[in-house]
């Protein structure tokens, strides 16, 4: 007997599954506790539950129809970009779908043959698809109707994420034009920033009182979540060559270089130009995320110096966006609760455009062999100005498409459901929506069901403002 077929390479397969798991950890618990700690105390449970349920929803949609829309055969919708816009939907839950050799039809000949099974590729790409809604969750926390969230996530994955992924990674039209997105600066982060901002505008703001007092509830959990994000990013960018070779390692080191530079850059900006001239922890975390996001589209295409420069430029741009652009009236009107527009949208766009400048043709992604050329990319500073134009075009496509789809899905759901929770639920938060709270106080609750008749459905009760009247367990 043999453990695996001859096309399978255990080193590549092991790294790919490890990288996928690292990226999964960025969502659970990474984003769940980062956002769970950043929101007001009364929204910790709601935020974490949206993260866990969003992750689950994307997985089912992914294996049943969305994966093939991102990485399958093209759906011929028309000429030009329409012929390579999205893939034909299909399931990957059969034995061949899981154990057969991974294969992206439009990338045949453009990259080496995969050395792991399709289940590895499906799961690796799933964790990217899953973290994207969790990122834009940060824009709509503290007011979005939970039922709307449960419907919006699979619809958005189907209509928006599939297109982003197909255009840039599935061999679609922008990939054919040479657009570069190493690990999702556009597919994930620009998409999350665009979607979050649009959704925040359509759904409406939090309570004015909550916006004015948006105090985080646990900075230690924020530290844990942010640390998992940083180190998890080794899988995010290190997994995207699909082979555990030299470019994977370079991508990991470049990711860390850009991130450290961006974190320190934000710290220095806060120290010398911030409102209070004091270094802040949450500012440093914003810098860290800006660096991680900006290096994502570039990680294995640039050299170490390019990575440091990308981290530095991104942190300055996002800092200016966060502290100056956010003062403009449009940004005050739209309640992007955790600032996803800046740390993901602006950072992703900055990184995506900077690949067009810093991509170094000596950074080899795939080696050439015989008459077949290898693969690397050159930016404007290496004599290829066209790359910058292609990067701008791909960015514009993602921005326009994702904003449009987000607007349409929400307007459609708005026909049947209230997109925003009613004010009386918003005033109480977690206890009104889930009958749970982030920091329950044992001493102030009584056991049993005193005060609440067992047959009364939860939805019929008044939102409880007084925690002391609540029973400890289910009625």
């Amino acid at each position, binding site marked *: 007997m043999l453990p695996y077929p001859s096309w399978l390479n255990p080193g590549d397969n092991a790294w790919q599954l490890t990288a996928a798991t690292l990226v999964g950890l960025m969502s659970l618990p990474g984003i769940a506790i980062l956002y769970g700690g*950043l929101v007001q105390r009364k929204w910790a449970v709601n935020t974490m539950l949206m993260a866990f349920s969003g992750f689950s929803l994307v997985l089912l949609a992914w294996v049943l129809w969305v994966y093939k829309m991102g990485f399958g055969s093209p759906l011929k919708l028309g000429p030009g970009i329409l012929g390579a816009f999205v893939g034909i939907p299909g399931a990957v839950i059969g034995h061949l779908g899981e154990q057969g050799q991974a294969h992206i039809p439009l990338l045949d000949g453009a990259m080496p043959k995969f050395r792991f099974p399709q289940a590895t590729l499906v799961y690796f790409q799933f964790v990217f698809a899953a973290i994207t809604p969790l990122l834009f969750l940060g824009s709509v926390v503290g007011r979005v109707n939970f039922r709307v969230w449960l419907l919006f996530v699979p619809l958005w994955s189907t209509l928006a994420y599939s297109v982003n992924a197909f255009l840039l990674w599935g061999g679609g039209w922008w990939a054919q034009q040479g657009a570069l997105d190493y690990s999702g600066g556009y597919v994930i982060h620009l998409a999350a920033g665009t979607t979050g901002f649009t959704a925040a505008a359509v759904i409406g703001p939090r309570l004015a009182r909550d916006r004015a*007092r*948006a*105090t*985080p509830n646990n900075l230690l959990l924020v530290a844990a979540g942010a640390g998992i994000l940083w180190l998890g990013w080794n899988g995010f960018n290190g997994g995207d060559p699909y082979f555990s070779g030299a470019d994977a390692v370079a991508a990991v080191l470049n990711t860390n270089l850009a991130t450290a530079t961006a974190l320190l850059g934000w710290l220095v900006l806060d120290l010398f130009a*911030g*409102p*209070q001239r*004091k270094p*802040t922890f*949450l*500012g440093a975390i*914003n810098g860290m995320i800006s660096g991680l996001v900006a290096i994502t589209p570039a990680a294995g295409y640039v050299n170490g110096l390019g990575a440091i420069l990308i981290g530095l430029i991104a942190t300055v741009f996002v800092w200016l966006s*966060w*502290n100056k652009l*956010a003062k403009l009236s449009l940004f005050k009107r739209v309640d992007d609760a955790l*600032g996803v527009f800046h740390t993901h949208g602006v950072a992703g766009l900055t990184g995506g455009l900077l690949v067009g400048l810093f991509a170094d043709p000596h950074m080899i992604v795939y080696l050439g062999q015989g008459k077949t050329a290898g693969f690397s990319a050159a930016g404007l500073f290496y004599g290829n100005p066209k790359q910058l134009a292609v990067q701008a075009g791909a960015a514009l496509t993602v921005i326009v498409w994702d904003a449009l789809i987000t607007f349409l899905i929400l307007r459609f759901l708005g026909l049947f459901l209230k997109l925003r929770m009613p004010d009386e639920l918003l005033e109480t938060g977690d206890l009104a929506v889930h009958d749970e709270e982030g920091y329950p106080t044992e001493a102030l609750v009584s056991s049993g069901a005193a005060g609440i008749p067992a047959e009364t459905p939860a939805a019929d009760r008044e939102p409880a403002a007084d925690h002391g009247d609540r029973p400890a367990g289910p009625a």
Partner: protein
Amino acid sequence: VSLLLITAIVQPARLEAVTEALAALGAPGVTVTRLLGHSLDELSVEIYRGRQVTSSLLPRVRLDVVVPAEDAADLIHAIRRAAQPDPGDARVWTAPVDQLVRVRTGERGIDAL
């Protein structure tokens, strides 16, 4: 013997000094409560992610101790000394105690101290 309730509201940072001073004068058992004092003169300012949040509610601690009336003057003096420095809103006051009963034994008055 008549009893008095001494109540002091002080800065949280002075709590240890005040309880030590009370213990040194023979009043080891003190009830301590965390509370917020409302002030129109002083604001607490915190910055989260570039956004400023201010509050006119400032953290303070409250100490309650029942003592024989004749000791009160010395104890108030000790509390005042131990609670310095103070921005100005710390207070000490007394109130008469009509009854004092120890729950476990049923002892009353000064025996219950």
